[in-house]
């Protein structure tokens, strides 16, 4: 009986937690043991599935301006965590911290936190 109850709980938990998993492997795509912080102007906010993206114009570690692709949660995950399609606007200055991509030419980051200093709006979490 306990076994059946456990299975049902696992089933219910699985159905309700709804992980929005990328088709790619995070370990294969990002340096999960490193972090990078950028500050720049938001160019585009793609609120979508399976993952949202934020594109930001910000300098790299050599001071050269780059367009960074920051991978964020799925639309469903973000909406549960209070982020909507209107949360960010083109031109917003934001500070982003996350795991850098393995291919440096891609200027890619897996989001860990984002802050908009002008009004203090922020998000912090785990992109799944």
């Amino acid at each position, binding site marked *: 009986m306990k076994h*059946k109850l456990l*299975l*049902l709980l*696992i*089933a*219910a938990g*699985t*159905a*309700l937690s*709804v*992980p929005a*998993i*990328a*088709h*790619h*492997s*995070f*370990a*294969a*795509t990002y340096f999960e043991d490193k972090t990078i912080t950028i500050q720049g102007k938001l160019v585009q906010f*793609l609120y*979508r*599935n*399976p993952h949202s*993206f934020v*594109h930001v114009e910000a300098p790299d570690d050599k001071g050269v301006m780059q*367009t960074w*692709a920051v*991978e964020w949660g799925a639309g*469903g995950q973000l909406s549960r965590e209070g982020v909507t399609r209107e949360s960010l606007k083109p031109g917003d200055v934001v500070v982003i911290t996350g795991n850098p*991509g*393995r*291919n440096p*030419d*891609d*200027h*890619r980051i897996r989001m860990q936190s984002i802050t908009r200093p002008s009004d203090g709006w922020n998000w912090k979490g785990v992109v*799944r």
Partner: protein
Amino acid sequence: MGNVCRARALGSLLYAAALIAAFALVPSLFGQGVIGQFVPDVGLDLSGNWSPLLHEDFLERIPGPELVNYSGLPISEGARLWAESWDSSRLTLPEHQCQVHVAPYIYRGPLQMRFWNEKDPQSQKIIAIKNYISTYEQTRTIWMDGRPHPPAYAAHTWMGFSTGKWEGNILTVYTTHIKQGWVRRDGLPESDQATLVEHFIRHGNHLTHVSIVTDPVYLTQPLIKTQDFVLNIQAGGNWLYPCEEVEEVEGRPKGAVPNYLPGHNPFLTEYANMYHLPLPSALGGADTMYPEYMKVIENPAPEPADPLAKAEVTPRATPNEAPNPVPNDGEVHVLHVQGNVYMLVGAGGNITLQVGDMGVLMVDTGLANMADKVIAAIEKLSPHKPLQYIINTHVHPDHTGGNIKLHDFGVTITGANVTGDIADASKGAAIIAHQNVLDRMSAPTGEKSPFPADAWPTDTFLGDRKVMFFNDEPIQILHYKAAHTDGDSIVFFRHSDVISTGDIFVTTGYPFIDLQRGGSIQGEIDALNHLLDLAIPKHDEEGGTYIIPGHGRLCDRWELIEYRDMVTIIRDRIQAMIKQGKTLDEIKASRPTMDYDARYGHDTGFGTTDQFVEAVYKSLSEKH
């Protein structure tokens, strides 16, 4: 034991026997015995919602596997090089973003799934077991009615074509026609030649899924995995997994395919070092599957001075002969693609037919000796309306050999103002091609022509396109200047949404770059990239625009993507070696195509692997 006890025991036995008898009677009372002629299906019922037990292999399934972690997988040498060349940045390309987990892998996905039976409304026999898998919104159909699998030249899908049967309480499923995908999400490939045997075993509210993948291209032994599910009686949950491609990385050059040159993967030793494993164990292979391999890990051989040396290519062990899905039976086989368009295989190069109220338009005419059988196939598809147009995609005789007979078989229907005024206006179908095709087939007056004059195109164009409207369909004929040859055209049926590519794209080998007739590797890659721009998938890189290759099986955009990737990666490798000053012989000896040879390589006959490497080398070196 006393009498009372014996009586109780006997009573219990009788009671149990009565219960068993009653339960045994139930099916006959409510089955075929009492109510009509209903015959229950053999086997259990899998119907219902099932949730995966994600804790099984959690690290691989949810966060994802590490790079160059190939442990425990019976991969071939070619698969290893394929994966070592794989840069995860490739998944940022828009055309790769919605790649689906193939059928053998999708049960490792995170979301729930649903089974239901489709029954014949009259007999109530099961026709098919349907399986909707939320991960990537895939629906599998497991046919239970004994139908055969499609021919090898039919299109492949992510879920493949499945037939099933109950073996006691186990549903056994056999699947073919699976697209190329991966066996692990760190670049390890699974080829489109893989087949799958599955066993679905239900134990009450628990379901065990056993998958056995056989891949003659990238596995040296069958790969067996199990995963478990529990019945989920809760309503709701997530059933959707939409994916739309976007521009993730800006500014990347068009046609670039991120890859590591052989021996240059910077992460080759990362996983092995992280877990203090000898590198060979991380590089996988059949021996790493078995418990005995622990002895090797505990007593590893001394590491070589250069760990990358282990990843270098080795001499070819077995000859390669790429699979050909077209039956070699001397017959012409017809496959309806979609809309007005059909594919004919078996006559040499593939032939495309567009059939409608106005008649027939065909792309390429196959080999000369197959023309009568091609005509018979056309007459069957269009018994009352004539062949009016022939389009030649290029000059080669396996695509133009039937020109004379097919031209004579067809008619040209001209405008009313000229009908009757021009003697041959209604005699013979028009043969359309780029001017370069005519130039290659003909010769100036007084010189010997390589093709008989009756086979020559009758209607040529000089620019990069010609358009037509036939059978209620707009048709574009698009010319590429220097790809397979200098006279290549593709034909895009815009309403039917089918593209006929000629030999720019084949599934039976590497592209044949005909340098003598103006072909080039860069033109070939440019043409493949342009074809990718034209094709639009219906859902997650499947369906939508269908592609009829010059040789081989029916495809959609996904096969074009993989082919473009392959040609581009091999180009990159040969180009890098030319920059290093390597000779053609040195380049051939390094086997720059090794990871693709088991799928596309030919050691003998026309269009060998060596010829391809040589053509790429000469094209890049401009030494031809």
